[in-house]
């Protein structure tokens, strides 16, 4: 069996309240009391301030710190954390003067150590504390000192604060508060642990589970709750956004293909625009080239024309020369006259004409005009020179033609290229215009479609976000479940001791057989988005009807108020007994008789007295009304007379003596004083209950 955590429980030893209006009367301006080991009672009547005083004691320990509101209503339900109330007004509201100057101071024993805590009752601001007589004043930094004090109190209770802080575990503050609030103080607004599985597990964890594991569970639980809350909040927001998006999507056409088409058309337009620019540039280039070539062609044509004319001239001259060289016209005239064809001009066939012509020819004279025709001597044959000149001209004309031809060819090529570019440009421009028209048409649709895509993307992002949080949450759930599972061993080891203690307490005041059973598989979930896991838990079984063996598990609604109260009290006492082992502890019970049938009062008194005396040093602090129910006498053991009356008186704080006088007390002073004496000292000889006019 693992060693149990040695928690040290605070026990009240002294209390003083001063300047607090509810406890000021003509005779007394303050309360100043010592508390004895064993039973201590705060007695009074309705409205005299019993509850307030128990709360003063309670608040001296926990200060103005509280768990989350939901956790107060159902302990163990929410995050394991305490929050400081910035303006604590519980006591202020109960004082006519606003408790401006009221202070309270309480001394507690934690084992061998004592701590005295002083707070303002106006708002619980810490005034100071004294540990084993060493005073620390909070004047300079009340808040910081209060935090220190809280750590100190947790440390005194046995939490390894230093180690916890090193591990960033802060649950000891909540755990300390939980022990004080839900185990030690059994006040009227208490939440029964036996009927509240969440709270039950928390107290089991604090009391029984290894401290480090306990811290881990607490932290894991906090993380889980935080993750759960985050997840749910995000899920809620996501669902809201999803609804909006879905609504918007429903109003939009489902056109993913339009977007695709639009994308294609956009890139087509871009490509065609680029192509058009390129073709235009090409065309302009060819156009410039053509201009250049046209000019060159014009020049070349002029040159070719000139050279051609020259050629014709030279050629004609050469041809004429060729004919002349072969046969001169003079020869023709002679031939015609000789052959009796007669004169080529007039047809005269006379012989003298022939002779005259031949004579003239022989003398190198023209037979027609008689001019001199003899060529100058020494001049070379004219024909060759003309031929050479002609051939030179032919070469020139040839190269001029060649140049022109090549320019023409180039012009045709460029012209073809120009026309091709132009026709391509025309075609491309047409296609571009079509594409632009389609782009315009698709743009509107695509805008909507883009929105659809965008919204769908948003949905995906939302889902991913939520899924991320969910997986985070799942990791926390998993870790927490494993830790809870590991904690079962610790609870299970002590379960029988708790069951035995419970049975002992329960049997003393229950007629029915009441049994506590342990189970390690009570299904419950701690957050909203998790699945139930198995928890270690104690459940109450009652015998029903004639069947005497307890078989029926019961919940709080199935038992009477008295039973409910006592089952829970018995459970707490059992827990305290097991957790404290042989160490002294304290139990603070508010008006135990309040919900008890008269039959149970005696039993309850005996039970509580039994607790008070179970360990030397145990402190039972109860408040009780001065009624005829005998609860006070039962608690003090007045009837048995185990202590002398003064000792019993020392165990009681009669608020009627110190509190502001109430109307009821004024009217029935004798009755209440009589009741007090009867309860503390013993039954009076002359019972004067009739004078009270109850």
């Amino acid at each position, binding site marked *: 069996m693992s060693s149990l955590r040695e928690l040290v429980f605070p026990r009240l030893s002294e209390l003083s309240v001063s300047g607090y209006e509810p406890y000021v009367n003509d005779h007394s301006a303050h309360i100043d009391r010592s508390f004895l080991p064993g039973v201590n009672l705060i007695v009074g009547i309705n409205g005299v301030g019993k509850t307030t005083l128990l709360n003063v004691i309670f608040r001296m320990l926990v200060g103005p710190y509280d768990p989350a509101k939901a956790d107060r209503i159902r302990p163990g339900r929410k995050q394991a954390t305490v929050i400081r109330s910035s303006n604590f007004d519980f006591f202020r509201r109960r004082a006519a003067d606003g408790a401006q100057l009221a202070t309270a101071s309480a001394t507690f024993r934690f084992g061998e150590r004592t701590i005295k805590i002083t707070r303002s009752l106006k708002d619980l601001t810490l005034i100071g504390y004294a540990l084993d007589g060493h005073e620390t004043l909070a004047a300079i930094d009340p808040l910081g000192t209060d935090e220190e004090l809280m750590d100190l109190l947790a440390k005194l209770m046995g939490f390894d604060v230093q180690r916890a802080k090193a591990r960033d575990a802060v649950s000891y503050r909540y755990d300390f508060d939980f022990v004080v609030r839900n185990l030690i103080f059994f006040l009227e607004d208490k939440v029964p642990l036996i009927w509240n599985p969440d709270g039950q597990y928390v107290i089991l964890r604090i009391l029984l589970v290894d401290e480090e594991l306990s811290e881990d569970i607490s932290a894991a639980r906090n993380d889980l709750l935080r993750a759960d809350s985050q997840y749910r909040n995000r899920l809620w927001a996501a669902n809201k956004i999803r609804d909006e998006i879905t609504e918007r999507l429903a109003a939009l056409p489902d056109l993913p293909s339009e977007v695709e088409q639009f994308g294609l058309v956009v890139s087509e337009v871009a490509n065609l625009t680029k192509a058009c620019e390129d073709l235009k540039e090409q065309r302009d280039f060819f156009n410039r080239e053509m201009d250049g070539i046209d000019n060159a062609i014009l020049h070349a044509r002029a040159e070719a024309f000139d050279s051609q004319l020259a050629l014709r001239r030279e050629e*004609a001259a*050469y*041809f004429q020369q*060729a*004919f002349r060289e072969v046969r001169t016209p003079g020869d023709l005239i002679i031939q015609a006259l000789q052959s009796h064809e007669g004169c*080529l001009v007039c047809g005269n066939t006379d012989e003298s004409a022939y002779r005259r012509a031949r004579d003239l020819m022989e003398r190198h004279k023209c037979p027609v005009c008689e001019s001199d025709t003899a060529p100058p001597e020494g001049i070379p044959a004219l024909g060759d020179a003309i031929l050479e000149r002609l051939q030179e001209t032919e070469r020139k004309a040839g190269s001029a033609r060649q140049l022109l031809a090549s320019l023409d060819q180039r012009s045709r090529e460029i012209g073809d290229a120009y026309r091709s570019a132009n026709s391509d440009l025309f075609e491309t421009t047409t296609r571009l215009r079509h594409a632009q028209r389609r782009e315009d048409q698709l743009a509107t649709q695509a805008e909507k479609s883009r929105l659809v895509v965008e919204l769908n993307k948003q949905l995906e992002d939302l889902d991913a976000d939520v899924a991320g949080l969910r997986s985070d949450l799942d990791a926390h759930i998993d870790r927490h479940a494993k830790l809870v599972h590991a904690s079962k061993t610790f609870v299970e080891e002590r379960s029988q001791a708790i069951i035995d203690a419970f049975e002992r307490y329960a049997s003393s005041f229950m007629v029915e057989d009441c049994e506590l059973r342990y189970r390690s598989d009570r299904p419950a979930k701690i957050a909203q988005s998790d699945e139930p896991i198995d928890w270690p838990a104690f459940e109450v079984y009652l015998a029903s009807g004639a069947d005497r063996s307890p078989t029926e598990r019961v919940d709080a609604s199935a038992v009477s108020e008295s039973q409910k109260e006592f089952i829970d009290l018995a459970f707490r006492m059992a827990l305290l007994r097991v957790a404290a082992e042989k160490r002294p502890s304290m139990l603070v019970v508010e008006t135990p008789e309040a919900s008890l049938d008269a039959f149970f009062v005696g039993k309850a008194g005996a039970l509580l007295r039994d607790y008070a005396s179970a360990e030397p040093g145990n402190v039972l602090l109860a408040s009780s009304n001065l009624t005829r129910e005998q609860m006070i006498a039962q608690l003090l053991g007045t009837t048995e007379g185990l202590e002398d009356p003064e000792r019993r008186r020392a165990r009681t704080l009669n608020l009627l003596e110190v509190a502001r006088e109430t109307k009821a007390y004024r009217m029935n002073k004798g009755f209440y004083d009589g009741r007090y004496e009867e309860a503390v000292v013993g039954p009076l000889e002359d019972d004067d209950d009739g004078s009270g006019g109850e």
Partner: protein
Amino acid sequence: MEAEPIQFGGSPHRLQGWLLFLLEQAGRLGLAPVSQERLHLLLFYCAVLTPVHGMEQPVPKILKHRDRPFYPEAQEEILSLVVRGFVGTTTREAVSDLGWESDGYWVTDDGLSVAERLKATSWGKSTSRFVRDLVMGFAELDPDDADDIVEQDALFRDDRLQRGHIRDIVKENQAAEAAKLVADYDVDGLKPDPRDSIALYFEFLQARRAA
């Protein structure tokens, strides 16, 4: 040699060259004396086929005279050649007679000497070669109908060309288009050479006539 950029067509000295080359070649192939009608016919073939071979046309316009082509300016030049003794003629009359005709022409030795001289020029060289191919093609034809195949020629087949009408063949030359088709007609990836293409054209006309 590329065609000349400007078609002078029918320039008198070149026309005399054409006539001398035609008569020279006809003489060589045994076609002399060449009747006036055939001489004009050969000149016509020269006119319609020269564009196919990238050459200058001897005469730019065709006159349809008695169902045959006739070129008055060429007739002037032939008379000049006859008068100067470069071309012989079967009928010799006085220059003063107007519009006389001859049964046949042939080139004289002086004409041959002149033709040789003209071949020394670039124009003379290419023109004489073309004329040689053309007359050789013509000489291959059946002598009986050689003069008549012109009726199958695209220009002469054209009903729009009436007697006495003149057609500017620089502007419109269906015969050249037909000849071009023949010249570009390739057999087994080979196109006919210039001489073959001319011969093929004559064969084409003859085949049409036969059909």
